[in-house]
């Protein structure tokens, strides 16, 4: 790893010149024959089935061949960071739900941990276990959506329904815990908002019993399907050094074979007391770091998350579910940057406090945003049909890219 304070050197990284950026101009391609061909500019999005939201990718194409793919973002910008500078610390929690709306628990968690670190609060043990349980369940739910939509991107409709069938049960569990199915605001500063209801632990255990055999079904249906492998293996290969250079994180980084997971590297909560493995791409179907690897890392992570939840459910202690936190929280002046491992990568919050009830500055590092930055490099010289394969395997959530 890079030493602190060292400059970041990324050999071969070309930062596009914003002035002479030649996207937006259609070039006439000179050929030897009488045929005169023209490049075509085509907007993929903002309304497109496989851009997963309101991403616009501007494609410069030569027939089916992609010469350049430039993501244009901002269609879902809601000024979340600016809002963060105008609301109190507790009030910002619901806004974090809207970042990565498929993993709201994890967003809540990252924000709550950052503020706790700033204000010097420690959540009780039971709260920490509950946080781990809901965060890992939400990771499963989020990866199930990825599994389903990736199948959909590849033209297989059925995995989508299968993934959502199981996700529904997780949403039921969350609904029982906090009343919401998508925007939970369950993990708050100092713990969790409410204790788990009676019977919840048993229901969660039943869900795991039901869910774990389903992984084989997913693999039979999609992962080991020959057409699916042909579509995704060796497509959109991200070598490990490029992945690090672009600041990728999460399954996209691990898919490139980099064994880096914040839950292991800087274990917070109770992750150091639970057994699980970091899953990395091994290039089983093609090269290391291809789309299939990135996809399969998520399948493996679902297994590991289920393993974590099972252990945490068994160890769940009794006690307080929330620490004593004043309603009007005034952290001492200072700054903090805290990252946690979200389903899509490292979600970080940088918060500056001036001692007042509202943050002086609140900045979020969205993993989807950083992961999306590699699209142009990877999508170059591939075919039009590969764009959904690459975009789907990077798995961005536009709510987090634009914030």
């Amino acid at each position, binding site marked *: 790893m890079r030493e602190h304070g060292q400059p970041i050197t990324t050999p071969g990284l070309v930062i596009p010149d914003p002035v002479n950026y030649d996207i937006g101009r259609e070039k006439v391609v000179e050929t030897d024959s009488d045929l005169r061909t023209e490049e075509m500019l085509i907007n993929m999005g903002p309304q497109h*089935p496989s851009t997963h939201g309101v991403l616009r990718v501007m494609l410069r194409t030569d027939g*089916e061949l992609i010469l350049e793919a430039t993501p244009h973002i901002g269609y879902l910008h809601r000024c979340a960071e600016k809002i963060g500078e105008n609301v109190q610390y507790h009030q910002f929690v619901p806004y974090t739900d809207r970042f990565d709306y498929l993993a709201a628990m994890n967003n809540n968690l990252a924000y709550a941990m950052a503020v706790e670190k700033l204000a010097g609060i420690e959540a009780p043990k039971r709260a920490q276990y509950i946080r781990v349980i809901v965060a890992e369940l939400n990771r499963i739910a989020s990866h199930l959506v990825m599994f389903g939509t990736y199948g959909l991107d590849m*033209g*297989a409709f059925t995995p989508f329904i299968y993934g959502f069938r199981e996700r529904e049960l997780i949403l039921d569990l969350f609904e029982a815990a906090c009343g919401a199915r998508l925007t939970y605001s369950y993990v708050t500063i100092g713990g969790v908002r409410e204790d788990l209801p*009676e019977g919840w632990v048993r229901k969660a255990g039943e869900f795991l019993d039901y869910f774990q055999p389903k992984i084989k079904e997913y693999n039979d249906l999609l992962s080991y399907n020959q057409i699916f492998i*042909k579509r995704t293996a060796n497509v959109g290969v991200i070598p490990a050094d490029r992945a690090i250079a672009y600041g990728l994180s999460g399954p996209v980084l691990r898919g490139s074979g980099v064994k880096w997971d914040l839950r292991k590297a800087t274990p917070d909560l109770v992750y150091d007391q639970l057994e699980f493995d970091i899953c990395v791409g091994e290039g089983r179907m093609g090269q290391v770091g291809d789309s299939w690897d990135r996809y399969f890392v998520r399948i493996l992570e679902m297994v590991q998350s289920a393993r974590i939840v099972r252990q945490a459910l068994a160890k769940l202690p009794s006690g*307080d*579910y929330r620490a004593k*936190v004043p309603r009007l929280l005034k952290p001492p002046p200072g700054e903090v940057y805290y990252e946690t491992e979200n389903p899509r990568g490292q979600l970080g919050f940088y918060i500056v406090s001036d001692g007042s009830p509202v943050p002086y500055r609140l900045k979020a590092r969205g993993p989807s945003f950083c992961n999306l930055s590699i699209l142009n490099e990877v999508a170059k010289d591939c075919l039009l049909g590969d764009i*959904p394969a690459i975009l789907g395997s990077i798995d961005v959530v536009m709510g987090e890219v634009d914030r």
Partner: protein
Amino acid sequence: MIAHIDYIPFFSWPEWLEGLIVMIAVYLPFVCLVAMFGIWWERKVSADIQSRHGPMRTGRWHGWAQSPADGLKLLAKEDLIPVAADRPLFRLAPYLSFVPAFAALVVLPFSARFIFVDMPISVVFLFGILALEVLGVILAGWASNSKWALYGAMREACQIVSYEIPLGLSILVPALAAGTLSLAAIGEQQGGGLHQWLAFRNPFLFVSCFVFFIATLADCKRSPFDLPESESELVAGYHVEYSGMRWVMFFFAEYAVMYILSAVACMLYLGAWYDPFGIVLWMEKAGYVWSSAVIGAGIIIVKAFTLVYVQMWLRWTLPRLRIDQVLSTCVKVLLPLACVNLIGAALWSWLVPAGWAQLAVQVLLTVIGTGGFLFFVGVLVRAMLSRRQGLRLTLLTPWHAIPVAEPPPGPEPASNG
């Protein structure tokens, strides 16, 4: 040939009238019924595969009225033509797509008795007229003046043009074995039981049957070859700008062609309108003209819909190929196979005499084919029996059934400051 052209009823008034009436009263409703049933059935099949119910409300019984209801809704929709579109071509394209599907049915026999036009070259006519459908698709893509539609049309053009070749060669193989290009005459040769079906006549015909089926998948743009309208890449491909009734034309054409090509596959390879045990042939010979004709028509419709079911099954199971993979599959696999089949079948009929060796091969292939068929039926039956498993959501303990015997929740939580 000339005599048969005379038969096409255009020269004398009463026959023309008769033809028109049969067309309007029988064939048009039949095409529409097939398409509507196909659409409803596809929804039910996909629902079954995805552990859903599909349409259940419209018309009470399993949503049987979903297709007519959708049709009514689409009929009432606004007829949109994009400003930038080429208006006359945009309007023409759906008909160019639908009419060939309708016209192809004219030469398709239902049984020895139910043949509207019995041409000696009906196979050639059928595939000639079906090839016109691609014209409508390309026209639609071009006239829409949308880049996505254009992509769909170009994909359709190169896909269909390349798959027409193995398809055409696979048609020639049974035609060669049967010694005729008339669908009815090819059908009539397959009556005497399962081993007489053309697919089981020799190994080359057997392989050719699969080549033909795969080529038909590509020809009617079904998954895994549904690139011209691939939703996740091209939004909807060539019909992205169409809505209302014009879109219905494309939709109907797709399902009609699906049925027609399946029926042709049955005609050419899978025993036409005969049952596997030679009963229909016996009835024909014994003089039960009408009853054998009706039963035969029922048999071929059932067979064709079985193949349609396989197409749907594939669609809801498999992902989609990429355009270069589609083309390389055609050029590197299907085309050589089709050529080998054609030459092999020709050599076979020249070298292998009709005797015990021929019969032994027929019986062997019949056993293999039947075994494969039964295997897949077994897979289906097993899936149906274990269908409850997929719906196990309801088997988890409901909340109210969980006894209140959890560990105590601990001390009173901290108040909010």
